């Protein structure tokens, strides 16, 4: 059934145009010919990627650096506009992209809970209800009323993850952030993700840790140069990665 798919990507593609970005006014005036005829070299970051994730399922996105994983996540989250194809999401997307994203460093942890939560699309009322829960899970303690710039890297990640997961998204998109926390926090995060997943949340997880993927995800895709090279059950994908001596 396609009805129970929360997240569907259809033939998704994204092309970036690489231009020299160090052009300023001076260059435009002095080298205007070069400026306006500068080549815009296309770079295909994501090419013809299709998959779908259903309620309570988890998908691992594997691949070496520069394979287009993060671009893919940005497309799924609706931050970037796809060049071709489309994304269909039913419900709310929870985002846990790289460290410190969605935070303002001059605001306190508590204020950032609201800022970040609202940015993720949670309701203000909901956030008020789960505020204590978020603080509790993040384990930042009484630092919560200190400005975020005083936080350690680990604390920022923990707070970020805590907000994202407690906002009860329908799809949770996690980009390689678990690597920052210590082993205890990792365990706690994975346990929490598993709980939520059992309650029907879909998860898209980018990771370089194959055992996490195997442990947690039902299916996987392996990206190389923006294209899907292997797709299927996580175990199969991992064994094919090993057979082909692929980087991940």
């Amino acid at each position: 059934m396609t009805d129970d798919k929360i997240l569907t990507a259809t033939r998704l593609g994204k092309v970036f145009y690489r231009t020299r970005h160090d052009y300023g006014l001076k260059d435009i005036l002095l080298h205007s010919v070069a400026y306006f005829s500068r080549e815009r070299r296309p770079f295909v970051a994501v090419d013809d990627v299709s998959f779908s994730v259903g309620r309570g399922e988890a998908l691992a996105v594997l691949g070496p650096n520069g394979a287009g994983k993060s671009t893919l996540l940005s497309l799924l989250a609706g931050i970037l506009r796809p060049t071709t194809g489309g994304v269909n999401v039913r419900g709310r997307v929870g985002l846990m992209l790289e460290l410190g994203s969605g935070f303002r460093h001059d605001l306190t942890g508590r204020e950032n809970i609201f800022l970040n939560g609202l940015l993720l699309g949670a309701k203000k009322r909901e956030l008020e209800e789960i505020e204590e829960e978020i603080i509790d899970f993040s384990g930042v303690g009484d630092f919560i009323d200190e400005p975020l710039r005083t936080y350690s890297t680990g604390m920022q990640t923990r707070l970020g993850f805590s907000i994202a997961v407690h906002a009860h998204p329908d799809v949770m998109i996690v980009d390689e952030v678990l690597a920052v926390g210590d082993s205890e926090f990792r365990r706690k995060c994975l346990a929490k993700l598993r709980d939520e997943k059992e309650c029907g949340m879909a998860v898209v997880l980018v990771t370089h840790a194959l055992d996490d993927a195997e442990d947690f995800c039902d299916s996987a895709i392996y990206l190389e140069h923006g294209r899907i090279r292997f797709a299927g059950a996580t175990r199969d994908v991992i064994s094919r990665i090993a057979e082909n001596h692929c980087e991940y």
Partner: protein
Amino acid sequence: MNCDRRALFLALRSGEIKAKYKSTVLGYLWRLLTPPCQSAVFFVVFSRFLRFPIEDYFLYLFTGFAVWQFFSNVLTQVSGVFIGNAALVRKTTAPRELFVWASVGAEAVHLLVTLPVLFCLALLRHRLGGAAGVIHLVAGVSLLFLVSCPLALLVALANVYFRDLERILQILLQVYFYLTPVFYSLAQIPERYRSFFRFNPLFSPLELFRAAFYGGVPDPLAAGISLTEGAVLAFAAYFIFRAKSRDIAEEL
């Protein structure tokens, strides 16, 4: 949803305000200090040295700078708003215009803080207008917003594509400052140039704002022109921003 947008706007705005006064001893007081300081300098130069014939010149300057600083600060602050918030913009799908509104909102708070000081000053000089004054004030501030907000959107967006704008803006604002009767009055301008001033979108808001204290009947034609310019800008800004705002994350 509306309530949540408002909450997000408030959260972003308090971020803007806090960032501005982070680790300063006087904090908000700085804002109260700038218009009087600038007014004082201009007062000495133009009233004592150059002998400008304007009544209650200090109050005249103060009203001028209150309006001018709102306008110029909005444009300067907003030009860097997407670059400054890149971490938020690149990682979320939040409506992009909210970042601009947060920045404008922070300046609006600043304008609001200046008003009581202005009222005290006007009270001292017995220049508080009555009901007509209130109407003029409200009309002036509304018109000021109508002109500033669309410009803010356009500047914020344009600066993402062309970052030199931030610098060019500094120069343009300096020129514009002298073209706007902030520290001089229209009566000092030779007759044949006067009608051109009506086309300055800031002219009417400023005149209305001043009429709240000085009385008199503001030029309805100038108000009409300013209103039209504001409306045209608003339309343009709305459509351009709607078309382009989804590409901001990529351009950053």
